């Protein structure tokens, strides 16, 4: 995968290895779009894709001394991104709850009958469905819906990026809506027993 940019990238990598933040910013800006698109394609979740990229760039910077010896920077970035994505997918593969959440997040949004269940309101149903998510996601949702905090305020409070807060809210809302809608139907049937 050698191309015209390779030579230039190699030079940037050498500078990063010496601790040059400008060079790192250059690489960051040049590759973030492609790597994000890759993580997005492989997971379908904006939240996970952002997590993957954060990990990739932390890894790049913390082990920057290795970068001096990298021949094809693009491939290097690809491989660490790929491995991080695989880590996430394995984690999902090992946990039925995460797999279920990913399935819902990836599936197209249904019709808008969702208003029948006011997600803005706290109810035991929402609470139960929420409790299957990570604590951080629950907290973000609660601070937003029940405490009325803005995305910026939540990000500040929890030390997260604003985009993460926003996307966690989008995905959590979708998860709750789909869970409540689709899992309610079968149970309702129980209320309409048949007597022969």
């Amino acid at each position: 995968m050698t191309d015209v940019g390779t030579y230039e990238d190699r030079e940037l990598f050498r500078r990063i290895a010496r601790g040059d933040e400008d060079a790192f910013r250059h690489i960051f800006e040049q590759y973030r779009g492609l790597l994000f698109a890759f993580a997005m394609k492989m997971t379908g979740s904006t939240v996970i894709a952002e997590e993957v990229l954060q990990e990739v760039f932390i890894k790049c910077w913390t082990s920057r001394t290795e970068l001096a010896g990298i021949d094809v920077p693009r491939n290097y970035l690809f491989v660490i991104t790929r491995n991080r994505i695989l880590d996430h997918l394995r984690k999902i593969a090992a946990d039925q709850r995460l797999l279920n959440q990913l399935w819902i997040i990836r599936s197209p949004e249904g019709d808008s009958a969702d208003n029948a269940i006011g997600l803005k309101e706290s109810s035991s149903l929402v609470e139960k469905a929420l409790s299957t998510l990570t604590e951080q996601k629950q907290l973000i949702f609660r601070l937003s819906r029940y405490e009325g905090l803005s995305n910026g305020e939540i990000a500040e409070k929890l030390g997260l990026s604003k985009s993460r807060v926003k996307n966690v809210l989008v995905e959590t809302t979708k998860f709750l809506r789909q869970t409540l809608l689709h899992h309610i139907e079968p149970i309702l049937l129980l209320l309409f027993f048949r007597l022969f």
Partner: protein
Amino acid sequence: MNTLRGERIKELFTRYTSNTITRTEMEELFGYIRDGRNDPQLQEEMDNVFRELSKKKHQDPEIDWDFMFRKAIGANASPMHVVTPGPWKRFRGLAAAAAVIGVILGSVWFYKNFINSASDTGGQQVAEQTIQPGNNKAFLTLADGSVITLDDAADGTLSQQGNTTVIKMSDALRYQGSSATEGEILYNTITTPRGGQYKLTLADGSIAWLNAASSLRFPTAFTASVREVEVSGEVYFEVAPDARRPFRATWHNGGVEVLGTAFNVNAYTDEPTVNTTLVDGSVRLFSESSDVILQPGQQGRYSQSGSGRIVVKKVNTTRETAWKNGFFEFNGSIESIMRQISRWYDVDVKYEGNTKDIEFAGAVPRSMDINSVLETLETTGTIRFEIKGKTIVVKT
């Protein structure tokens, strides 16, 4: 690398990235991801995705890039604040429209124990008295007759059976061998008690999920021309494709023969019929007197007491295999429902009054404690339950 499996992974992967994958296929793909042996191929598929993406221009998504960059270089690394949850306005607006009440009523029970959430507090006392649902446990009988209890065995290599290594990984067991070799065929048996379920990966890569009160006898390596296993109770199979060696599963009065497929066998001897449901692929189902080829979505059913004549009908496979995904699919008489409950909660059932004609339809998560399940059934108003120790009395 098994090329048939390779093709299958490629196919699933393409459907996954183009978002045309079905739920079952996604489960299958993530099964391959879980199974570390497929990593080289998964990496190759990811290479291709990346190569394709590299050819295109990408829009800068709306991500807080500045934050990410700063965090990467460790500048202003935002400390993680610990936030104590405030008093959530829990019941605000519960007075929803009357139309919604029915939904909530039915669902309160549904969510009551939807997931045995670790964050759930205050349930300790109740847990002592209520009968808890089953969990992942089983016994493994090795070729030499020794028995390993699988709920408390530590993760890692459990045993060496011939050329095959038996590995326990969290809640599943895997047989991993050098490719088929000559030699003595060793048989192991995995048995789930009432209140147990277990997942097992056989030496050929086929996966079997055992429901409660079931067993599977299988060779530790598949060296013969037919991959043969014996089933009792209920088992869901995802058979690894191998055109040269058919896979045959037999039970007390029948069996199936397949090449590579996913199917569920319910052959409990206390059920009136033996039901085989084909999810994917193709199987030949045989009873003692007849045989039939099933198509995906079909169920072959024959009576335990009759002539063995097989009746084929179209079924909802998701419902028929709901147990594997953690649900009871109740559809039919109270007796059939109570048989499922008795196997999963390890309880006995007695009937008082005429309960014969009561039927139910619906789904309930298997993670619920028994009280919640019975309460849900009671909401229909036709039936009542009394729990006496480990016995459930059903009353009209």
